[in-house]
């Protein structure tokens, strides 16, 4: 479970950033007092246009950033006070996540398993299962740099799941991927839901959200504009389709 409480994140602005943003403010509010809860066995979607604060929120959940104020609890652990315990519980994957090209998939998976404290026995079992599921046996000993985008995405999925995380965070996981590679991610999210994991993912692709999510929140300029179940969103929408309704809510804010 993820519990986000009155979360705020303020970034100091450099001179260059101020001139680029045409502002005299010394700070930029990336996330402004947002609260939500993601339940196990459900997929929570964070929707918003570019620069809305989705990535910053997910990075705070993943302990990469510390909140300026407010709190986040992941599986009962505080992301600031118990960051390492939180990290053990999460899997983190973004559309732009890279891999170490000079390693082979086998070496990379073993490396991350070791970092997450996975025992050799568990590693062997999980690796076998994930390699079967993702059809990775053929290229497990090739250098990652020589793999295709689709193969790399499979390695990335395997890396994210090798420690069997309770919470999985996806930051625009399908951005920049072709249809087949994106399908792997969608299947992974579905699989996580079946396994009872807590899943949060950010996106601005409404078809993906419609297909996968149980609960959603719409944020823009760091503020929470809408929060509810997907069912409620569909029922109460005033525009003719989901994308139009998303745009209407963002514009009205």
């Amino acid at each position, binding site marked *: 479970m993820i519990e986000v409480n009155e979360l705020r994140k303020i970034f100091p602005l450099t001179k260059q950033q101020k001139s680029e943003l045409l502002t005299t403010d010394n700070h930029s509010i990336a996330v402004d007092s947002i609260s939500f809860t993601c339940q196990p066995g459900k997929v929570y979607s964070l929707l918003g246009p570019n620069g809305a604060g989705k990535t910053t929120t997910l990075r705070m959940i993943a302990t990469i950033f510390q909140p300026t104020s407010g709190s986040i609890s992941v599986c009962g652990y505080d992301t600031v006070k118990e960051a390492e315990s939180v990290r053990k519980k999460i899997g*983190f994957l973004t559309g732009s996540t890279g891999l170490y090209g000079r390693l082979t998939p086998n070496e990379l998976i073993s*490396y991350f398993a070791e*970092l*997450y404290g996975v025992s050799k026995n568990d590693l062997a079992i999980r690796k076998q299962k994930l390699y079967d599921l993702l059809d990775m046996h053929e290229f497990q000993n090739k250098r990652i740099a020589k793999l295709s985008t689709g193969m790399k995405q499979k390695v990335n999925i395997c890396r994210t799941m090798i420690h069997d995380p309770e919470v999985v965070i996806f930051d625009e996981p399908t951005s920049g991927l072709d249809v087949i590679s994106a399908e792997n991610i969608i299947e992974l999210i579905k699989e996580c839901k079946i396994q009872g994991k807590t899943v949060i993912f950010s996106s601005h692709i409404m078809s993906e959200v419609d297909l996968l999510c149980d609960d959603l929140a719409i944020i823009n300029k760091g503020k929470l504009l809408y929060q509810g179940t997907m069912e409620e969103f569909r029922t109460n929408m005033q525009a003719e389709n989901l994308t139009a309704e998303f745009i209407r809510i963002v514009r009205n804010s």
Partner: protein
Amino acid sequence: MIFTIFKKELKETLRDRRTLLMMIVIPVLIIPVILNISVGLMSNVEKEAASKEMRIGIVGKNDSFIAKELISVPSTFGKKKIRFYKDSLSLQKDLKSDNLDLGVVSDPQLEEKLQLKIPVAILWYFDGSEMGMEERAKGYMQFIESKALQKRLEELKINGAQIKPLLPIYKNIASDKEMIGKLAGGFLPYIFIAFGFMGCMYPAIDLFTGEKERGTIETMLVVPVARWKILFGKMGVVIISGLLASTFSLIGLYFSINYSETINIPEITNVIQSILTLKFIVILFSLLIPLTIFFAGILIPLAIYAKSFKEAQSIITPLNIVMIIPAMLVSFIPTFELSYSSACIPVINIVLASKDLIAGTLDYGMLAVSFLVMAVFAISSVFLSNYRFGKESNVSN
């Protein structure tokens, strides 16, 4: 966990051709190449100078005193060919157009003045931009003068020893090792420092800037390992790379001295072989370790700050100059020596201590100060790296 990260980073680094080139190939090859080329060139120049036929022009006739004396100079002074000129202008013209190597003009009343025992001027023309010409002229003149002096003494019936009350003897008490250590000893520490820095540079960029450029930094920061442990694992590889580059340059030196046919100057090879002892290597590495940690500690924050390889290189290259140029200057100035004040200047202290170490004149008190100062700077740079590595801006920028 530090070791797990270290192993993985080392494996990746050893699979990077660019790093291998900077860490192993160039350090091993550069010293043999430089030594072979420079020693080869020097010996060629010497051989050429020795075998060169000197074209000497004399203003006057072939039966003049200076002509006869020059012709009598033995062939051990090198081959010579003498031409005669009517005036000094045409002689100078031939010298300028490189048709002559030396020109001699003497007083027309030379022989009369000699008989009257009046000093006579002998003017030697040479082109100073041509190596060794002045020395050849002085050599000929010394021979002619000593012959003339001997004749004069005989005429005056004076024993040469009687007019030479003092017989100065200049005795150099410095050993060959000390001489080479003081004069050329700066070359070795400079090489170790230059390669140590370059050895650290590429892994630092690859392991820190590279994480950003390849998009792996977020993945690394969400693993359940303290950030300082991640930093230490990576830093270990940067330090090892720097030390390996220095070591390989030492190996290159060893092989070029022992197995190169070009470098066959027994005085120098014997001295260098006597320098390369186990004690020397142990003390040298005890100095190089804090130095390399310091290099890693200042390179890492810059590599973390940069967003791309290109940016990292453009930031680090000026630092390379800042670090290496003073080391190079100090290396080659024989009068700049290790003292308790210079032992407090980081990097410079290591160069000077290494110079004294090579010369065998190292003061262990100053060595300890140099080591401590470098260790303090190394530890500070590690803290700086840790501070920079923990910043959120590494990801947000």
